């Protein structure tokens, strides 16, 4: 039995300790917002937060999150994520949308650590793959969310 906090709620699963967090989230807990892209930590579609920082859930055995806090794209109440989601809609970022949960979680982790990122900060933090090629808008939306005035930040949150 592995116990951890998922989006603020205590969660327990009875699975093999080496089952990746990704599959625990998707198949065992029905949180399908986190995506499977490669299974080797290369594409970032499965990006979630472990204690607030971006990790790739497809290569994270569930045993490694025992007692810790996991949050996913389904999390509510994260003002940074909410601001990014609003910017994603404003900039009409997603195309097929499959990579965007991971993109958003990676971006939220970046803004938590670097509230006003430079292009270089974005380049080094955002290594997710988007096959539709929304990268230009991802960058614009991150800048936009980072520089949103406080009032609209509150609104978006």
């Amino acid at each position, binding site marked *: 039995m592995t116990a951890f906090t998922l989006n603020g709620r205590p969660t327990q699963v009875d699975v*093999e300790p080496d*089952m*990746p967090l990704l*599959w625990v989230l*998707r*198949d*065992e807990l*029905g*949180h*399908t*917002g*986190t*995506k*499977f*892209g*490669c*299974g*080797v930590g*290369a*594409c970032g*579609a499965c990006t979630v937060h472990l204690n607030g920082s971006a990790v790739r859930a497809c290569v994270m055995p569930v045993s490694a999150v025992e007692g810790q806090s996991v949050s*996913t*794209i*389904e999390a509510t109440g994260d003002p940074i994520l909410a601001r990014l*989601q609003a910017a*994603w*809609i404003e900039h*009409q*970022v*997603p*195309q*097929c*949308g*499959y*990579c*965007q*949960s991971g993109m*958003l979680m990676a971006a939220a982790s970046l803004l938590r650590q670097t509230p006003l990122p430079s292009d270089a900060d*974005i*380049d*080094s933090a*955002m*290594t*997710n*793959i*988007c*096959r*539709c*090629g*929304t*990268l*230009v*808008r*991802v*960058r614009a939306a991150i800048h936009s969310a980072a520089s949103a005035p406080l009032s609209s930040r509150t609104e978006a949150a």
Partner: protein
Amino acid sequence: MSRNSRTTSVARPADPTRRRFLIAGAAVSGGLLVGCGAPTPQERLGQAGQLPVQGGQVALNGWVKIAPDGVVTVAVPRAEMGQGVMTALPMLLADELDARWEDVRAEVAPVDQIYANQAMMLNALPFGVDDQGWVARMGSALAQRAGHALHLQVTGGSSSIRDAWLPLRVAGATARALLVQAAAARWQVPASDCRTQAGRVLHAGSGRSLGYGELVAEAAKLSPPTEVPLKDPAQFTLIGRSAPRQDIPAKVDGSAVFGIDVRVPDMVHAALIQAPVFGADVARFDGAQALRRRGVRQVLRIPHAVAVIADSGWRARQACADVQVSWTPTPHDSVSSADIARDADQALKTASGTGFVDRGDAEQALAEAARPGSGGRVIEARYHAPYLAHAALEPINCIAQVRDGRVNLWVPTQSASLVRWRAAQVAGVDTEHVTLHQPLLGGGFGRRLEVDMVEQAVQLALQTEGRPVKLVWSREDDTRHDFYRPAAWADFRAALDAKGQLLAWHNRVAAQAPSNQATARLLPWAAADSPDKSQIEGAFDLPYDIAHLHVEQVRLTGHVPVGFWRSVGHSYNAFFTECFADEVAHAAGVDPLAWRRARLAGHPRHLAVLERVAREAAWGQALPAGRARGIALQESFGSICAQVAEVSVDEGRVRVHRVVCAIDCGVVVNPDTVVAQMEGSIVFALSAALHGEITLAQGRVQQASFPDYDMVRLAQAPRIEVHILRNGHPPGGVGEPGVPPLAPAVANALFALTGQRVRSLPIRLDAAPAAPKAVAA
């Protein structure tokens, strides 16, 4: 085009202030000739009963239903894969309906003949966007007929808007006419005294108005008019203005449901061990050890694969490692990329080709230019592009259930009608007994036109006693079992006169034929080893004025499955032809923009696109040291696109800083979507140009996943500027035309920078690049 001038008095506009024209006129000028034409938009209206309804919704035809609260739901028979079809198609209908955009919703249409994509097969025709001759129009009519007759309810070939442009508008206008009639009857006033606005019918004289939701039940009882006038483009309120995409909000909070997200009660999960060499089959397998693992239920055999069935996808995948499989030998077990290249070289040198264009006498002009003392010269080059995988980010998947003679399918597909038909074949049931559920696609790019995953899932479902089976491929499966963009080789010879002017252009393109292969797979009764336009598109249909032109196709055979990869033959032919054009311009000592401009007098739309991109990119103006520009132009899928790339090289690594793109796609429906498709196409094409290469060894694909089949990430993404040429031409495609010009624009820029010609993809500069040259462009 004279469509707007075909106003006729037969139409009786309900609102005389709206300048309208008859659909019949548009149909004739659009090439739907009597006798061989496909169903007209009127004939594609369908019946109200074809649409499933709920919550008081009332359908007015096969495309639209309205609820009592005024919510308008539009049936969209194309797959949403990020190209915005769930927004753009409803815009067409809603504009003619005069609906309030906030009230409009999109819904996946059922499978029905009225939804067949009649524009898809236009891509098989050898005519350019500005060819309005009778042969082109006759061909267009026949191609549309074929799309209907084959019931191609498919999404691809950048054809969704081209197909929907009239039928969706006619459906909206027809529904509007019924609502107006219903209001007029209730008020007992002439329909011509009523107008419509924002989801309401208004009576000017009395100031009364009724919402569509209040009228729809009565409207549905009336007979639809056989002819409806359509809006003049000047009256559009939605078409041509950016609308936020309907599918986006669910894509930022994880709630959007892709195929891989579907969960069906009682389902089991399948993982495959697929034949490493294409065409091999299972000789023997032993699943005993795998069956001892937690959650594993069955180890099964299907054609070309062994499957593990388990209670979770991960457990099924893990257990694959414990299955012992041996494979039947094939004639291809030792084939490598070098073998394939050698065969292609041999074929290019010796095989007879199929001529696609033969103007003047290219051979004679080449011989004359080569003759000593003629003052002319011949330049030659060979180009190459590799096999490419689609690598949609959502791995291939399908859920199938076979029970009581019925099949249920949940699959993210571009081929709704074909998927149903093939599932029925495999399960041995009637097509009508296959129910297809169509979740969102996590990328398509042509890969999801194929039906292989459906065949596999149904074969598995036949062996699981009625339980639904969810088949999910690994990324490695996805990379190694694709229907690849063909590898291609091209030989060019150009004859120049003493002044460097181009006299003759001779081009042979060798590649497997993607359309022929796809037809054999998807529509086997239509299979033939015929000339394949898709293999050579973009090479034979050059817009440039060339006196002696000969372009021919050499169709290669081989065991690697090939298919439709975003922009198909254009994806490599644009690289070949636009780079060789750059070589020819350079040989003549002419600026590449000027060279193209001088040869486009007969193609004003192409010229306008070229001029626009050059102006926006400040072509010819100085750049910082170490940077250079390249330009390329390509017509594809009914649109014309040109790009200018700005590059530098840093320690042997190519850096693309900026791409300026100009696109003429005729009438624009949702401009922001056009911009997004250009941006996405440029990044997609840049990934291929910089990284993309599928190679073979011992008959099998060597690449497995993103670490060895890499993509451009944010750090490599250029700044992109998109400029749309607005005009009144019929709509062209936008999903693919942004792909072809990118690779040649980058390669031409690299030549301008380094003096080194890139004639093979992906781009690999020599270890010690030549010293930068001072070139203005």
